[in-house]
């Protein structure tokens, strides 16, 4: 119980820091990949602090509420995860959080926000099956949905969940909002959607979204970590290293592909969910 609480507190405090630094690293690495110098590593923090200082504007009375809910539920979702909670609960509450973000965008009744929301929704539909299957895979392997049980299970899930692992990595590109799947919004302008989902958010509201992303990214990496635990310190070290590698990989992918259209996003992720995820589950079914 106490360790659990400690984990949650650590998450609450360190996730945004680590998430922000990772985002900073991302920007530097991306810049270098593009032959540029890039911003200082703390740039994401400057951005957020800057946003906090800006004039408070909104397009209606409710959107801030929704964005706040988004942030709160993202944090809660991560909290469940780090408290060793139920993976399905984590996924469902993540969906709840995303729905809040989408509703926030919808509420503005503004073209680009709306289309962004629509695309975000599509992305959810694209990744959801795979994410659910990831949880199912862990359950079938360890007999529990609980992160705490998975952690102490003692065998490295990766070996039996290799298909699911790749499927999850694929999905991660969508969740990290990286090219080729940065459909609904991206850091860079110059896309057909202006800023998509976030078009109507400014100042503190936008800062909240940014911070929520940091939290989100951390627990998404937590999933990656889960694949490598085997109850020994080696597993933990390996997990951390692989998380970093996975993150780097996502940055590389971001810089290596054009943005795809929604059709491809939906099709490819479902195909992956079926080929990598489902087949893996079937194999598990006959192994355990």
């Amino acid at each position, binding site marked *: 119980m106490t360790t659990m609480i400690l984990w949650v507190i650590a998450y609450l405090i360190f996730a945004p820091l680590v998430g922000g630094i990772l985002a900073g690293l991302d920007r530097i690495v991306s810049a270098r990949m593009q*032959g*540029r110098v890039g911003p200082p590593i703390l740039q994401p923090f400057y951005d957020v602090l800057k946003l906090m200082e800006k004039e408070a504007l909104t397009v209606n009375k409710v959107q801030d509420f929704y964005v706040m809910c988004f942030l709160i539920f993202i944090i809660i979702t991560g909290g469940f995860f780090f408290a060793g909670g139920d993976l399905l609960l984590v996924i469902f509450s993540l969906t709840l959080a995303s729905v809040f973000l989408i509703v926030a965008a919808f509420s503005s009744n503004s073209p680009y926000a709306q289309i962004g929301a629509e695309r975000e929704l599509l992305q959810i539909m694209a990744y959801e099956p795979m994410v659910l299957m990831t949880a199912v895979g862990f359950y079938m392997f360890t007999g529990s949905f609980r992160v705490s049980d998975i952690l102490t299970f003692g065998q490295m899930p990766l070996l039996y969940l290799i298909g699911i692992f790749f499927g999850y990595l694929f999905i991660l590109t969508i969740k990290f909002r990286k090219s080729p799947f940065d459909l609904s919004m991206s850091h860079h302008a110059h896309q057909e959607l202006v800023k998509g989902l976030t078009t109507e958010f400014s100042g503190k509201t936008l800062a909240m979204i940014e911070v929520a992303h940091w939290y989100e990214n951390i627990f998404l990496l937590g999933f990656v970590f889960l694949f490598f635990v085997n109850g020994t310190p080696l597993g933990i070290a390996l997990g951390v290293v692989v998380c970093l590698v996975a993150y780097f990989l996502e940055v*590389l992918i971001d810089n290596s592909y054009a943005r795809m259209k929604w059709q491809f996003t939906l099709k490819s992720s479902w195909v992956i969910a079926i080929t990598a995820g489902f087949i893996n589950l079937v194999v598990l079914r006959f192994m355990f």
Partner: protein
Amino acid sequence: MFVSKISKLVLRSLFKKPATKMYPVVPRVWEERTRGHIGIVEEDCILCGICMRKCPTNCITVDRNKRKWIIERMQCIQCGCCVEVCPKQCLTMEQAYTTPETFKVVDTHDIPAPPPKAAPVAPAAPAQEAPKAEAPTA
């Protein structure tokens, strides 16, 4: 899966020195022909006003009475037309650009009176040489 053709280039760049010129830490070296701003050799100007008439943006004002040659920097397009037409070749194309300012820069140059033909020795009245920046009134 999708083959990415750029990964190699991207990874190579990651470990190479960035191409960035690091301006302003490293100042820019200009080419000889770089067109930055118009300079004037005040002594040579005869206030004939040809530059004023030919300048496509009308940014030069030549005031014969007050003996002033005035250029509105925020209006000059560095076309070099004035340099070309000046009968005295007293205008030059300098390489540095006018620095951005919070107001519209207008440079006024006092053109020294030509030495009276009768007195070949110039009186020791040094003209103001440095261009002066004036804040716009509005």
